[in-house]
């Protein structure tokens, strides 16, 4: 088997992976980097992020305000040391992006502009019209081309981490165009493989967001933290799940039920003012908005369509000029996919799975419980998002913690002992045999698409916006069953060159593990907090559950769930207030 070596191996070339690679290159040009990604970097799902990235820069704002919004937004399940670090570092990171050429939208005097975002008390979200993630990703990718120490392995599908004695020494990855398995040996591995929204059927996440890195780390013994917290974004297009950014509401869009009524005022988010007020109405946090939809649906006040119930997003009063300038992609998507022009029509929307608050458990340096193994970006959980991420915090997160993990890894590799050849070879050949078995198995009883569909549907049914013991148990059973049946899948495509049947199969394997960690964590959390809302335990329970759930892999059954204390420094848990009482700034 061919072996590649590098000091630091980065799995994933999205926002987090690229930021990490550049940080390594800048910290020490002599540290060699292998940047491994299953898609070309610019295809990574960071490109889909629309709205913006929050960072304190304007004179009316304070780091403490960003801290408070984030901690409260996360329903106090955030680690406050991490949040503090995050809000301190993000303005520098965003400025750095500017220095690398990111085309941030500007004010008349040439300073970067900020826009309002849900759950934020003050306008602080930097944006590049409504293509922020796209511009950030391309800026990072193009900037990364400057550094000779970054060696890219585009379209290499990582299958496993190589771990010996609690120390990570590399990965195995399949070169997609030859089907050949390769070993990558290194002293540190940074996993930046993105989220896992695809474990649900209706999601804003791209096809590649299948939780591969989470599953790899999990199988290698690293706990997945807070997996039960799944963010539904309130405004996805019915049918496709394509996202209409929160910027739509930030700029002043309304959410209307079937009677044309701004129903959010009935859910503690009012009063309904004409101009948007931060932290109120449409600018409330995502968990609250998605939950309000669920209640409206139960009351029969949503509009039924072939793609499920919808409510309307009304942007007509914003005018064509503003929409073209600040929300051009939204207009493009709505016109194309639901045949509604926001300038003149109401746009149908519904909540859609968007983001995983949970992920690979790390400390504030991105380090995991395995030495030399780091994680950053959406696949990781440093706990700045807690029980509910605020929109526009994750683009910042992947910069801050991508760079931190990288810098820490650069220090680590200076003294790290490499893994032994024997162990690396043995593990790699296990992987090789596993894949060979997939090829050899003939006429498997099970088909990948059918298993995937069965699993994702049951996730939506039993583990959605609202959950209870019964629904969760049912989903848990389905996932366990799918996991068992997955052992019988056989490849229907036996070729080696760009075999997407193989990759979808490996991805399904990862999704099953992630789904199981998710459902079991959800069953065990017997309270309602942030995005985790239980119909059978409707209150937040700080006595028993002001803790992170930690799911540990179990090859033969349900994961073991353990708990870890939340880091609280200066903000004691309190009630989350939105609407008039939150005292948010009136925008524009």
């Amino acid at each position: 088997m061919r072996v590649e070596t590098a000091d630091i191996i980065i799995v994933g070339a999205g926002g987090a992976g690229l930021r990490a690679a550049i940080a390594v290159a800048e910290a020490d040009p002599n540290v060699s980097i292998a940047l491994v990604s299953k898609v070309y970097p610019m295809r990574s799902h960071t490109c889909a992020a629309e709205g913006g990235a929050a960072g304190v820069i304007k004179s009316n704002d304070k780091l403490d305000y960003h801290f408070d919004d984030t901690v409260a937004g996360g329903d106090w399940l955030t680690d406050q040391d991490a949040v503090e670090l995050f809000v301190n570092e993000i303005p520098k990171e965003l400025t750095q992006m500017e220095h690398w050429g990111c085309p941030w939208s500007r004010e008349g005097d040439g300073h970067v502009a900020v826009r309002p975002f849900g759950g934020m008390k003050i306008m602080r979200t930097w944006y590049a019209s409504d293509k922020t993630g796209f511009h950030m990703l391309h800026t990072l990718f193009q900037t990364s081309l400057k550094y000779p120490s970054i060696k890219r392995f585009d379209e290499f599908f990582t299958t496993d981490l190589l771990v010996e004695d609690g120390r990570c020494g590399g990965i195995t990855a399949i070169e997609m165009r030859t089907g050949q398995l390769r070993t990558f040996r290194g002293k540190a591995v940074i996993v930046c493989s993105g989220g896992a929204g695809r474990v649900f059927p209706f999601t804003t996440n791209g096809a590649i967001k299948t939780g591969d890195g989470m599953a790899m780390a999990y199988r290698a013994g690293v706990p997945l933290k807070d997996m039960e917290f799944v963010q539904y974004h309130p405004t996805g297009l019915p049918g496709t799940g394509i996202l209409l950014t929160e910027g739509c509401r930030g700029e002043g869009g309304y959410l209307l039920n079937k009677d044309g009524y701004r129903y959010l005022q009935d859910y503690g988010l009012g009063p309904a003012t004409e101009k948007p007020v931060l932290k109120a109405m449409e600018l409330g946090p995502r968990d609250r908005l998605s939950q309000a939809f669920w209640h409206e649906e139960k009351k029969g006040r949503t509009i039924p369509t072939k793609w499920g119930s919808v409510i309307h997003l009304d942007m007509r009063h914003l005018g064509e000029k503003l929409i073209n300038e600040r929300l051009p992609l939204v207009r493009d998507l709505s016109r194309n996919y639901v045949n509604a022009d926001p300038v003149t029509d109401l746009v149908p929307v519904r909540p859609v799975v968007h983001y995983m608050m949970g992920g690979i458990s790390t400390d504030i340096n991105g380090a995991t419980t395995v030495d030399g193994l780091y994680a950053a970006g959406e696949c990781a959980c440093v706990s700045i998002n807690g029980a509910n991420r605020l929109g526009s915090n994750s683009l910042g997160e992947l910069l801050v913690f991508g760079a931190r993990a990288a810098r820490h890894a650069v220090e680590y590799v200076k003294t790290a002992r490499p893994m032994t050849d024997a162990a690396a070879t043995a593990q790699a050949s296990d992987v090789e045999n596993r894949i060979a078995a997939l090829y050899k198995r003939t006429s498997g009883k099970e088909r990948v698409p059918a298993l995937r569909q069965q699993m994702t549907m049951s996730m939506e049914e039993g583990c959605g916006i609202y959950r209870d013991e019964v629904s969760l148990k049912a989903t848990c059973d389905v996932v366990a069953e799918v996991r068992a049946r997955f052992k019988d899948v056989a490849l229907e495509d036996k070729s080696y060159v760009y075999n997407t049947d193989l990759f979808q199969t490996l991805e399904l394997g990862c999704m099953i593990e992630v789904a199981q960690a998710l459902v079991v964590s959800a069953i065990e959390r017997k309270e309602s907090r942030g995005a985790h809302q239980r119909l059978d335990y409707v209150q937040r329970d700080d006595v028993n559950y002001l803790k992170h759930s930690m799911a540990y892999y179990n090859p033969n059954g349900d994961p073991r769930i353990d708990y870890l204390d939340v880091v609280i420094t200066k903000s004691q848990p309190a009630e989350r207030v939105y609407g008039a009482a939150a005292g948010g700034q009136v925008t524009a």
Partner: protein
Amino acid sequence: MSAATTDTANPRKPYVRPISKTSWFLTSARYKSYMVHEVSSIFVALYMIQLVAGLFYLAAGPEEWESYLAFLRSPVVILLTLVGLVFFVIHTTSWFKAVPQATRIMRGEEVLPGKILVTAHYGIWAAVSLFVIILAWVA
């Protein structure tokens, strides 16, 4: 077969589709219309040669000039003229169409809309043409 997951053999064999170097432009309407405006240059060249020759005839005196005019009246030249005219108009319109792409003018914060540029070109074209015709008329 598991061997192919190691590097014993490289199974790649990228396929390159052949492109004809001499007839590629027949494969799409878009390319054909491009070739039409490229070919207009043949007529521009012919016309320029005709004009330069005409100058020499003019310099040579009235009789020579008369023979030049007679040449212009021959059916072949008339036919070529008519075809050339079509190509010239195609050249003009396709050239104008491309103007906003090749020149971006900022007006304050906005890029000057292409339509204005194109319209202006048509306006100037009309004015120039009218001017030449009047000049020829009064002569």
